């Protein structure tokens, strides 16, 4: 038991390599994905399709890197990958957003189904249009040098995507708390009926936009993963980051600032889990159990809090 926990700790924070090349590298996609999920949840959109939007972003970024990467410098290539990845993720989320708006399809169902379609699409891509030239392995060729995102620290694998993720969280925090748009998002999420009736806010439009931004965040995470970590596209590119992101968002109580802490925590768990399996022989699935317990704990805690608040309110109004 102690041995396993020590291995987990060592794998996550035990060395500078563990921190800068394992934990934080795994935190990078979780920052973007957790932020996307949190923004959607804030507006009352239960987007649990971050996984699919991530994969579509990865496909988009790989494709654009393969097509134009050899003829364009990195200064243009990297923003272009981010843009294409973001648009691909937003487009994938847009399908679910449109279904919700037009037919009232629950996004919980549509987004999770789109995850499977995205997974199947990536399978086809790496055996078809994007397969490496020898046509032996189900993966893409390595993306050109100009499309590989810069590392931040010499000798460590931490890449640009992590810093951009931190920036995105900061921007989201400012938008949510300081701007009219952010206020509308929070109002729509807290009470669509009051937003409509008292605020005359266009709930449908707000929901649509947040849904697309949420998808764009996930798509960008996919682009950053291809550009910063894998340099190629293959089916197992995400070890379920899109699902972990829901835990990241919930643990952070949907607050962009806490997303940073929460993403690093889950990144550490991911990094530590592999080390634990390798060094202590404890299956990394145990970490998933921990994750599940955390989610349940957070949900139970928030339930209790709302109930306590409700009691307090009732007592207060009785005065």
């Amino acid at each position: 038991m102690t041995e396993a926990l020590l291995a987990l700790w060592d794998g996550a924070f035990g060395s500078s390599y563990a921190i800068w090349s394992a934990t934080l590298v795994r935190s990078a996609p979780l920052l973007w994905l957790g932020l996307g999920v949190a923004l959607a949840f804030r507006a009352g959109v239960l987007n649990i399709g971050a996984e699919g939007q991530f994969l579509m972003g990865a496909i988009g970024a790989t494709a654009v890197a393969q097509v134009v990467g050899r003829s364009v410098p990195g200064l243009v290539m990297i923003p272009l990958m981010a843009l294409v990845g973001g648009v691909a993720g937003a487009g994938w989320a847009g399908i679910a957003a449109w279904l919700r708006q037009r037919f009232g399809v629950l996004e919980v169902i549509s987004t999770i189904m789109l995850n499977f379609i995205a997974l199947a699409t990536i399978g086809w891509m790496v055996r078809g249009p994007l397969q490496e030239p020898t046509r032996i392995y189900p993966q893409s060729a390595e993306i050109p040098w100009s499309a590989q995102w810069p590392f931040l620290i010499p000798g460590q694998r931490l890449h640009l995507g992590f810093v951009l993720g931190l920036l995105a969280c900061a921007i989201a925090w400012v938008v949510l708390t300081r701007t009219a748009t952010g206020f509308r998002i929070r109002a729509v999420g807290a009470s669509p009926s009051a937003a409509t009736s008292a605020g005359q806010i266009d709930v449908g439009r707000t929901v649509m936009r947040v849904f697309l931004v949420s998808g764009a965040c996930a798509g960008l995470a996919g682009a950053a993963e291809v550009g910063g970590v894998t340099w190629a596209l293959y089916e197992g590119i995400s070890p379920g980051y899109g699902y972990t992101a829901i835990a990241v968002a919930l643990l952070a109580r949907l607050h962009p600032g806490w997303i940073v802490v929460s993403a690093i925590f889950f990144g550490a768990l991911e990094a530590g889990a592999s080390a634990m399996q390798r060094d202590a022989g404890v299956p990394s699935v145990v970490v998933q159990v921990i994750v599940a317990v955390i989610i349940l704990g957070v949900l139970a805690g928030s339930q209790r809090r709302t109930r306590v608040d409700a009691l307090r309110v009732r007592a207060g109004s009785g005065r």
Partner: protein
Amino acid sequence: MTQRAATEPMGADPRDHEALALEGITVRFGPVTALDGAHCTIRRGTVHAILGENGAGKTTLMRAAFGWLMPDAGTIRLHGAPVTFRTSAEAIAQGIGMVHQHFMLIPAMTVTENIALGGRGRFDAGTTAARITAVADGAGLPVDPVARVRDLAVSAQQRVEIVKALVRDARILILDEPTAVLTPDQATELLRWVRTFADAGGTVVLITHKLREAFAVADDLTVLRQGRTVLSAARALVTEAHLIEALTGAGVGPGGAGGPVPYHPMPTARVADAPEVDDPAPVLRLDGVRYVDPRGVTRLRAVDLAVYPGEILGVIGVEGSGPRELLRILAGRLTPTTGRVTRPDAVGFVPEDRLHDAVIPSFSLTENLVLADGGEARGWMDWSTWRTITRDLLATADVRAAGPDVPMATLSGGNQQRFVVGRERRRAAAALIVEHPTRGLDLTASARILADLRALGGNPRPAVVFHSADLDEVLAVATRVVACFEGRVREVSPPSDPTDRTPYTRAMTGSVETTAVSSGGTR
């Protein structure tokens, strides 16, 4: 327990047999007494109308008879024998059926499935459908057993509800406000069916607030007021004047406890004076407004209305007759199907459901203030300015709160409502639409809100449109009163005796002519 002698059938006429008798029924919901010893006796083969204003206890009484709720005291006799229904299933088994005002059907299921729901044993769609068709055709209520309920018009859904009761061999049918959702033609048809059903030996209890309906179809009438039976008699023995007296309690001796609040019109130009040439322009104006709701029910027909600065227009009318839609159209929250609306850019709106539609309980007071501008706000939010504005509002509207940053949920209902009224006034000085402002508030808080509305100042003074289910409230606040009935809006001229509520009740129940509403000379 001593009803042995009372239940012996007297003559050969089946109408002398008692089908359902309710005695001394008392129902309490917490501190509220909904029914206070109400009684009525329903004879077999008759149509029995239960009348009363909103909240008089009509539906509660019949729910007790249907086993939907257990009375705290009282006896129920079915065909002379005392019964206790613990659940509505037991009442159904004894041949009682109830069609609720809000239908109990599952939209995604077929008619057959809906009717079979709650049944026992094997379900065979074919035989059930055949039985439904047989019963429905026999009763003269055509339904399509394979249709999905969500595809059916409201009138057809109502037929399904009735057939559902008949399939279970209901001989006593309780219909709760059945015509509220129907067009006049459909209502006439339904009432005709009700008459036929009773003539064939069935028994119908008709809960209604429409005097005309009761007179048209009922054999017996029972009137409830504030949870008590104030009148129960054969229709032939009752005049309309009797009935209105019983409904409102006006002019009644000991029975009229509580009494009506005297109505003193506030001295404004609009009440008595004929329209003058130097009239100010109306703030709000409707011309030929018609509104058909998404379900296809016409809620408002050809409404002309003008509201002037400084007046408080009281809107009366029972649920479903149009006040809700009228107010929402004036507030700009609903777009009329046809017709023209003239209104200022900003109209303050105090909706009925405060916690759901007016405020966000988890948000701070400042955020709730900003919410009213939520649709228009752009760019950066200057929270410190908003906080100052909120602090000012708390002072001017006399809202008791620890500060602008506490959550709305920590305020009492009365303080929340004063906050909402103050917020809407701040944003829209010219016009304010107020819907059921005292709902959920205690007596003191209610009185405060009503007094605040009467005292609204400003220059020019705002035009206020006010609707409440409580007639006394409307009369206490309004300078002019219009009544909604079946989607038409008519002005009620104030009676010479300020304590006389008869003209208002008449206008709401459609029992007598009232003057068509004037748009104040500007047509």
